[in-house]
């Protein structure tokens, strides 16, 4: 019988297997349970059409953008253009836009938690976005049907006032050719958060910040631009010959020759260091939504000419619009900016509102350097872009015209910030294949900022 006692260990081993498996299940439950629950077939949270069963999305002023009506159907705000303008921040009813509030903030909207379950989810919460829906509509209209992205945020509080991505569509009348028509390519992406693009000349601000700190006699130097220059085994070209210029003039002229030479003088390692410090290669968490990371190649098997082009935002450079906007905010704010947020508050019936905290970035740029760049960016506006286009604004900006292949028009960029005390806004505008940065993107920025100040 003692032998049996010994052999009965097998029974314990099996019981151990069950306990072990149960622990594995619990770990998986803890790690992925929220994802399991947020399946469109989960009738506790989604209706039979796969739409979120409850929760209202409102803009910062309490305008309802998307809610569930008495018949249990999910409906959007009136106005076709308005619906297109808010689509990417609010999300589509079927969860295709992963960064939309309906998907990204489904837990906040329904009140679902892993430990509390979906109990009471049918009541739903009021989710106030930081977005100003009117401003979004203005921005969407300003893009005028072109692909692109517009974002404006308060660099002191982090509140994103405007976030538009185009192409968009009307969630009330979803086009049949949405998935096939090339005009809708990447329509489910919020370009502000989830895409990266060649930055072109807006990246010169990073090269400039490195040069200001690493080259002591930068401010005393002058350069002569003849329209192109031999750097390494190739040339770097400008749109025209800019002639004799200081660094400030070179930035206002957006002179590739000067910044290409500076990039080579600084070297790949330094450029990489400043790009990383600027936060352009990191992912921000915008109310929990991760932004896309920018990618750059400054080191390795690249020629001097490649390095020169990468220093002016070409070559393999690729930047996320939101990260660029945060960098603008950091320049404006003395080196550190607030991390953007999209959620103003979540109003649960019967519960007090939870306070939302502002989170700051790390130091993206040294304070003195930020001050110097600010002045030069202000000079850009007076010298090149024209103050008349931006009435009542203490604007600092940099345009970009990013070449994206000989057969396509360049991407137009316009990024910067206001120094107005009552409107501490940083912004970024991208018009894909839009043409000239200061003309096309600058015009969009002008319209949006005017509306933002009203």
């Amino acid at each position, binding site marked *: *019988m*003692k*032998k*049996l*006692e*010994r*052999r*009965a*260990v*097998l*029974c*314990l081993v*099996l*019981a151990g*297997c*069950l*306990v072990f*498996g*149960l622990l*594995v*299940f*619990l770990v*998986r*439950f803890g790690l992925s*349970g*929220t994802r*399991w*629950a947020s*399946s469109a*077939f*989960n*009738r*506790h*949270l989604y209706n039979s059409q796969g739409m979120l069963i409850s929760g209202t999305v409102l803009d910062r002023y309490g305008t309802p953008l998307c809610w569930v009506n008495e018949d249990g159907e999910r409906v959007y705000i009136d106005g076709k253009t308005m619906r297109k303008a808010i689509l990417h921040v609010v999300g589509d009813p079927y969860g295709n836009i992963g960064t939309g509030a309906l998907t990204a903030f489904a837990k906040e909207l329904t009140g*679902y*938690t*892993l*430990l*509390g*379950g*979906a*109990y*009471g989810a049918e009541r739903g919460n009021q989710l106030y976005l930081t977005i100003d829906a009117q401003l979004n509509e203005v921005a969407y209209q300003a893009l005028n049907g072109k692909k692109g992205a517009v974002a404006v945020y308060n660099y002191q509080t982090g509140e994103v006032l405007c976030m538009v991505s185009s192409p968009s569509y009307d969630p009330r009348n979803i086009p049949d050719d949405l998935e096939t028509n090339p005009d809708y390519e990447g329509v489910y992406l919020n370009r502000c958060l989830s895409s990266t693009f060649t930055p072109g000349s807006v990246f010169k601000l990073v090269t400039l910040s490195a040069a200001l700190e690493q080259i002591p006699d930068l401010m005393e130097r002058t350069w002569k631009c003849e329209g192109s220059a031999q750097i390494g085994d190739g040339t770097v070209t400008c749109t025209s010959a800019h002639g004799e210029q200081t660094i400030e003039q070179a930035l206002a002229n957006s002179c590739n020759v000067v910044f290409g030479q500076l990039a080579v003088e600084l070297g790949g390692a330094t450029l990489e260091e400043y790009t990383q410090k600027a936060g352009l290669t990191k992912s921000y968490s915008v109310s929990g939504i991760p932004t896309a990371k920018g990618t750059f190649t400054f080191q390795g098997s690249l020629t001097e000419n490649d390095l020169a082009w990468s220093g002016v935002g070409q070559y393999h450079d690729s930047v996320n619009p939101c990260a660029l906007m945060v960098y603008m905010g950091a320049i404006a704010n003395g080196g550190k900016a607030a991390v953007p947020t999209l959620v103003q508050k979540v109003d649960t019936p019967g519960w007090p509102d939870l306070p939302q905290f502002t989170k700051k970035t790390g130091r993206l740029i040294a304070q003195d350097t930020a001050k110097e760049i600010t002045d030069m960016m202000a000079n850009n506006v007076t010298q090149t872009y024209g103050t008349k286009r931006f009435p009542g604004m203490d604007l600092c900006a940099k345009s970009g015209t990013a070449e994206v292949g000989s057969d396509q028009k360049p991407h137009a960029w316009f990024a910067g910030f206001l120094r107005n005390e009552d409107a501490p806004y940083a912004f970024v505008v991208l018009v894909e294949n839009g043409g000239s940065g200061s003309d096309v993107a600058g015009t969009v920025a002008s319209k949006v900022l005017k509306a933002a100040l009203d």
Partner: protein
Amino acid sequence: MLETITQFRLHLAQLLGAHPQIEGWFFTLVRFVFPLLALLILIRAIRGLLRVPRAGERWGQLALPGGGSIPITRWENILGRAPLADIRLDLPTVSRQHAALIREGKGQWRVEDLGSKGGTKVNGKPVSGSAPLQVGDTLWVGGVELLFLPLSQEEEEHLAARRRMEQPLPMWPSLIWLTLFQLLAAVQFFLKSEEEGWAPLVLPALSVVMWIYFLVMRGAGARGFEMETIAFFLSTLSLAVTISSAPGAAVKQLIAVVLGLLFMLALGIFMRDPSRIQKMRWLMAAMAVGLLSVTLVIGKTKFGASNWIILGPLSFQPSEVAKIFYIFAGAASLERLFHKRNLGLFMVLTGVCLLCLALMSDFGTACIFFATFLVIAYLRSGDFATLSLITGGAAFAGLLVLQFKPYIFQRFASWGHAWEAASTTGYQQTRAMSAAASGGLVGMGGGNGWLHRIGAADTDLVFGMLCEEWGLIIAVLAVLSIVTLAVFAARVCGVGRSAFPTIAACAAGSLLVVQTCLNVFGAMDLLPLTGVTFPFVSNGGSAMIASWGLLAFLKGADTRERSSFVVGKDRAEKPKGGGADEKA
């Protein structure tokens, strides 16, 4: 009775009509009460079962020539030099397994020589084969002379006192909490259901059944109720799941619990007499094979496996009950522990059963049978090498089938990545996981789920339903209850009387555990979904009856003082004192 309840419902409806918020409060509050009650019910039962019984039984003693004595704690004892001998005589003249000292069913003792070198003698006469041993006889084992004596009065009293200390915990508190659980659940279902259904009444009916059982058994002198408490708790969950998924089947499920209870009693009382067990083993083996082969011939297919027999309104899954006969035959075919019998016949029985199950495409049950085979075979032979070989062979055979008939395993194709096949082969698993994650710790409340609309939700996916409607805490407790039964089976071997109940208990415990593994991990995509039931919890009459039947084997090994109706006291037949004096 029904009138009173109709009246009550009417009043309740009026009350709720006047104060609609009460219903909301009730649901919100009661969600947290259920897990609390479950904890109160189970912690006591689990604690009771996991207390190691230290003071085993004593049946007599062997007095050594130089003074001192060795107690006889079992009905089957091996005398020898081996470290694992029950009565160890560490002398060079004693063989490793020298002789066996066995208590027959009626209380007579016998000694058997196990082919020892030095030989065995009773009162000086050499034993060839076996010889009876009376109290007071001298037993000569390889040069050692032992005197077979009963326990002294003093020792017996001391032991009795110790055993009283280790008596099973009283289960009254757990029962009261369980009754409260059942009543609250019934009220919750009444409030939840829109239509006029009587299905929730099965819960208070189960309370009545439960109390009748306990009072009758208590009256008959039984004291250990931990296992039954666990089984009644799990059966309550089963009824709750059934009310939610198939209200029409709730009464049937209650009847299954009652039948299961009666089956357990019958099987247990049958096993009280060890002499019956040996006689019946062939019949049991034949029953197991018969049930499976009959199913093979006239079985109907439901949910992918053709393991159902449908007779008019009754549908029945014989493979569930076949498990019990299989364990019975397997555990009983080892006549005596010390007989080096080969496993041939048992392997043939297993082979036939597995073949039948494979032909029915019931791979889940085949897995359970195979795991049970391994447990029984290992307990009987201790031959780890051979069993590893057999397992390897089985795995190889499985791979061969996979090679030649891959379509058979297509059902299992999505194993491990159910989410990538969420609309095809991973449909059930993904639904179960999603619903499970919606319940949180305390669940959505009975009847407030959607998983029950998915096929086989109350059987194969029942763990998902438990998580969804009753919460993670209760679902995990249900699994831990099964673990407890197996751990108890393994530990109680230390004080087991003889081979059959010990092996049968371990086999039953292991079977319950393996079945739970396949059910829970199948539904949660940690193992292929094979369509086996969660013991006691899944909706299904055959499965419920079989689960209660298995409990009889576990009760059969419970030798704690007056705890099990299956284990007799046998005090009257113990060797009486004074035998030695008479001889002298």
